[in-house]
């Protein structure tokens, strides 16, 4: 639990970065809030005071953090709505995409790495290794465009953008399209058609984000599996007469996965956030990522600030959880 200190430092760091985004942004913060036109000096000084800009910097930071803790990130300049509610609206779309990509990456990457480790040195191993090398150097934004070119433009198999065909009008309950389309209300109206549409929309963005993690997970699994398979206890299990598949998928894989899980937290989040930003933009996916991009283009600093706090905090906390899980799973780390 001595990790608690660095967890706090990281959280402070994230909020400091976010705090200074507004402070260092080009333009006058008061003018940004009250509008560029028609501000007489009295209005200006009132706003200056109201925004707390006449207070010491450290106090301003404290106010900012206490607001952030209460979920108050100010008002979006572009839409006039609260940043927090805008983020909440878009959150499920990003989580849905991220989870789908994580599942695909795990269920493709880990078996591929395991197979490569068992058949190491064979042609299959070389093909898988080469594929993972190529996969990890493919820029995700280019892959997204390629997938659109192949599956949407040429084969007409998957839609190019959005989360659902416009023909369906599904009530927003959880915000997860794949869940909302399965709820009774939607089932009664469209049957499973809306659900299939949601899945089809999810397909290409998911593959775009998952490609690099698949490559990395399979490489890691292969390396760690090769090591584990040469351990004495595996030989003992073989001598004991346990079935080979059971040894492989239960005894060996469980231990081989530890180093993979350690990387999974930080690495996947990093890729997912980057992937989310680039991929959501390509596929017009209405999540946090495309929101960040559009607010940067609109110079909507409260939104950028809020997004940094939310995404940064999520990354820091996830890392802490993954770290704790690894300590639980592996007594040697304690």
């Amino acid at each position, binding site marked *: 639990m001595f990790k608690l200190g660095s967890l706090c*430092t990281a959280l402070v760091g994230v909020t400091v970065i976010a705090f200074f985004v507004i402070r260092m*942004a080009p333009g006058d913060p008061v003018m940004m809030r009250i509008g560029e036109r028609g501000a007489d000096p009295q209005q200006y000084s009132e706003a200056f005071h109201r925004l707390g800009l006449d207070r010491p910097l450290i106090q301003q930071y404290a106010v900012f953090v206490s607001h952030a803790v209460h979920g108050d990130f100010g008002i979006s300049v572009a839409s006039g709505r609260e940043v927090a509610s805008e983020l909440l609206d878009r959150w499920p779309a990003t989580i849905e995409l991220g989870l789908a990509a994580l599942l695909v990456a795990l269920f493709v990457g880990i078996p591929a790495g395991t197979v490569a480790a068992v058949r190491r040195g064979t042609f299959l191993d070389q093909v898988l290794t080469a594929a993972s090398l190529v996969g990890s150097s493919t820029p995700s934004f280019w892959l997204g465009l390629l997938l659109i070119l192949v599956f949407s433009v040429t084969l007409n198999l998957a839609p190019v953008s959005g989360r659902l065909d416009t023909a369906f009008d599904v009530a927003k309950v959880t915000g997860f399209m794949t869940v909302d389309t399965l709820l009774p209300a939607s089932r009664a109206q469209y049957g499973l058609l809306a659900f299939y549409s949601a899945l089809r929309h999810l397909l290409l963005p998911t593959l775009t984000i998952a490609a690099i993690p698949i490559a990395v997970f399979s490489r890691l699994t292969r390396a760690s599996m090769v090591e584990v398979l040469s351990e004495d206890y595996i030989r003992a299990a073989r001598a004991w007469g346990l079935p080979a598949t059971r040894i492989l998928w239960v005894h060996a894989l469980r231990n081989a996965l530890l180093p993979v899980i350690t990387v999974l937290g930080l690495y996947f989040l990093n890729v997912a956030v980057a992937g989310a930003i680039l991929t959501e933009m390509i596929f017009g996916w209405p999540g946090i990522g495309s929101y*960040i991009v559009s607010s940067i283009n609109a110079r909507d600093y409260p939104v950028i600030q809020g997004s940094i706090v939310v995404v940064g905090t999520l990354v820091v906390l996830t890392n802490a959880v993954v770290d704790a899980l690894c300590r639980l799973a592996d007594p040697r780390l304690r």
Partner: protein
Amino acid sequence: MAKPSPDVPAMSASQKVGLTVVLLLVLLGGLAPVAFDLDPYTISSQLRAEPGVSKGSGPLLGTDDLGRDVFSRLAYGARSSVSIGVFVVTVSGALGIFLGLMAGVNGGWIDTVVMQVIDVVMTVPSILLAIVVASLLGSGLATAMAAATTVALPGFVRIVRSVAALEMKKQYIQAARTGGSSTFQILWDEVLPNCWAPIIAQATLGFGDAILNVAALGFLGLGAKPPIAEWGAMLADARPFIESNPHLMVLPGVCLMTTVFGFSLLGDTLQQQLNPKGGSRR
């Protein structure tokens, strides 16, 4: 880039592939513009790529939506990429060596402060960090490069710090100190030479990452501004023509992927050779 020394084994096949790619990139960026008298900027309404009349007549790889020669733009894109890589790796490497030595050699509070800051920087996903930097400084190739430098810095600091901290405990440092060497001399003559091997491997990997990050920012419209030829920005320009002229989108991506592939192949193998215990990149 890496000087072959007697204790480094012969090049492996993947290293040769990586090196070839890197050399090709340098050739394309450095020589092609000079050798073929290329012009990536002239706009021509006659040569404009329209559905159906893109390839074939005239220029080698056709023209883009503004009638600019695609091959020239790719070659100048290679030139941009090489400059981006050199700049980012040099600046982040130099800063990283400085900070890493400070932290590793002195220990104490300097070490704590530097490493905590680096940890925070590493926590923020690199593209988000790059976006923050780019949105603060205003978009453009220079700020995209500054952003990529910020993202690359932690890697160098951590590597130099860990090697330096390890070396400082060894007896020969004690001997040098007893012999009257100043701290700076010890750093320069004793500690730094031990750091070069991992730094070179990190720099090679960082070169590819830098090109990729700047291209990603260019793709988002936060990097190179028109009419600069840069692969990421070219990809963004090609998006509207994905149906009519897919080659505009395929070619810059192929260049980008091949470059990143070459550098990571070379970097990974260098890392394994120079530091057999260290394992792979992340």
